[in-house]
């Protein structure tokens, strides 16, 4: 009984009191409940792919949103992960729980191989160089078509689980676990891991970070490796879920989609990437169902994107978060915006906003 009360207290004080966490909890529970309400394989497929792309978009966010190393070729990691899982599966009959970690490690290695020379470059030079790598790899894939399947890609990868529902649960749980790891990795307020705050420092001002005695190259490589690992996980899951891997996993449009989702949701917040994926990806798939709008769906998509960015350039999730949450000025605790006094130290929350417009 006391144990239950303890749990009740945790939920009351750590979740219900903080709207952002409440939303995250409701979101997670509803993700778990989706297969209970619908057996429609199409809807299940959309949400499975959304979970995979959420890992992918969040991994882009680790590298670009937090560390500020603009990467326009993120599909490289996804593609390397997907292709290595498919090749390992087809040639060595490795099951998914072995091939996906190996594929992710391959993606990390590729990330390090390109990261070491690429980190001599800064800012937009880095952005435009990273753009090149997936295209180069696509060229190589086409050239060695016997081994890689060329334009057709590789087919016949073993399925992840027997039923769609099981693979949905595996993928969703992998997603939640990966997101938690990435969130902890990049958490700037963490007490025991200082990677997060260092990555922020590198993004804000690399020279100052370096002159404060931080080996920025090492941390940038670490960020490349972490981001590559999770993008590789996403690619591997994609390979075993779709059971076919083609050059489309390396396309520029995949990277652009990840960027769209992340910026739409709000960059430098892992949850922003997830928000973006879970809103935009199902939206465009469902629009496709209606023949009247399916012709206009990309136009609609582009317009939604343009207007969102015009009116909330910091991203949807941050915009909403700033509306529903308020930080106490005295104790820095997070409160729901409708409260008048802080729930922890009972200081008044809504002071007259005269000075500045600090977020």
């Amino acid at each position, binding site marked *: 009984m006391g144990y239950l009360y303890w749990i009740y207290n945790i939920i009351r004080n750590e979740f219900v009191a903080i709207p952002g966490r409440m939303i995250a909890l409701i979101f997670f529970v509803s993700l778990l409940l989706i297969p209970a309400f619908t057996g429609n394989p199409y809807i299940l497929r959309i949400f499975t792919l959304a979970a995979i792309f959420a890992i992918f978009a969040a991994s882009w966010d680790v590298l670009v949103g937090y560390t500020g190393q603009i990467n326009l070729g993120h599909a490289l990691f996804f593609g390397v992960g997907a292709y290595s899982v498919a090749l390992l599966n087809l040639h060595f009959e490795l099951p998914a729980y072995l091939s996906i970690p190996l594929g992710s490690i391959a993606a990390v290695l590729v990330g390090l191989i390109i990261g070491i020379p690429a980190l001599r470059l800064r800012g*937009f030079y880095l952005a435009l160089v990273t753009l090149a790598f997936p295209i180069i790899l696509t060229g190589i894939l086409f050239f060695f078509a016997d081994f890689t399947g060329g334009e057709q890609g590789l087919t016949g990868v073993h399925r992840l689980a027997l039923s769609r529902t099981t693979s949905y649960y595996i993928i969703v749980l992998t997603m939640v676990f990966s997101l938690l790891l990435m969130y902890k990795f990049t958490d700037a307020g963490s007490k025991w891991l200082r990677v997060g705050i260092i990555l922020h420092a590198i993004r804000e001002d690399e020279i100052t970070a370096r002159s404060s005695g931080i080996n920025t190259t090492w941390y940038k490589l670490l960020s490349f490796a972490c981001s590559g690992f999770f993008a590789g996980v996403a690619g591997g899951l994609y390979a075993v879920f779709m059971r076919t891997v083609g050059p489309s996993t390396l396309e520029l449009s995949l990277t652009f989609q990840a960027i769209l989702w992340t910026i739409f949701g709000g960059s430098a917040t892992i949850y922003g990437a997830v928000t973006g994926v879970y809103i935009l990806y199902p939206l465009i798939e469902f629009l496709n169902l209606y023949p009247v709008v399916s012709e206009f769906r990309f136009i609609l998509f582009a317009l939604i994107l343009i207007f969102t960015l015009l009116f909330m350039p910091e991203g949807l999730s941050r915009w909403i978060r700033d509306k529903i949450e308020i930080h106490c000025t005295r104790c820095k605790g997070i409160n729901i915006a409708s409260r008048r006094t802080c729930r922890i130290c009972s200081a008044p929350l809504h002071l007259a906003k005269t000075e500045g417009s600090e977020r």
Partner: protein
Amino acid sequence: MLSGIIVNTLVAGVIYAILAIGFSLIFGVAKILNMAHTALYMVAGFIIFIGLQMIGLPLYLCDILAIVLTAILAMICYRLVFDRVKIQTSAVMIISIALAMLFQELLLMQFGAQPRQIPPFIPGYFEFLGSRVTYQHIFSFASFLALICAIWFLMIKTRLGKIIRAVSEDPEVSNLMGINVTRISLITMGISGGLAGFAAVIVVPLFTLHSLMWISPLVTIMAVVVLGGLGSIKGSVIGAFILGFAETAVSMLVPLGSFLSGAVSLTIMILVLIIRPEGLFGVAFEEERL
């Protein structure tokens, strides 16, 4: 074979050079990484097509219209969209991708996916060392040279050019010196759009026109711009011809080379950058804070 490589290199170089100049101009002045730049080029091509085939205007009028309308379109995009989000560099990039997508889908809806042709400005061809050179090729190259001279004149000899160079070097200081940076950015966006239109005018008759034609030059012009050094016009032109040559040579000399052509030119870019991180003609901002 050799003459074919020369001719195709020159044509590819001309397109990439004009597009890359526009792309790097607006990047230099307003720090806008305009992914919709090649989409503007595509729109200009379709404006020529509409004017010629649907309204029935003479070709030279269509060409002028294409350049002017594309410049105006670019300025509208700047005023309505880029100017409002320019503080967030990443948002600017995403918005430009969204704009490019918008143009692509509008054109796809109106004209479908089948490729279109535009008749050449000057019909006819002659034989040059065994390969066919149309007069349009000659015309493209000649007008390209004229354009380069005009840009050189604009940037070096006129007051506007001086202002543009000042803004791209340091927007804050030029603002303090009494330059209206937003207006200069708007004008530069217009010039950049006009250049995209010009590229369409001189090269679209050599190729087919379709609604996905913006993607493949986009990657190459980014490579060109990086290879030459961001913001350097001379670098862009030389980089364009280097990559144009690499792509053409690989796709003509190596079997199955058309798959590898993009890969080879981008590898060249990466090799150059590893040796010289600021590009061939870029200025080394060793400790620059963006």
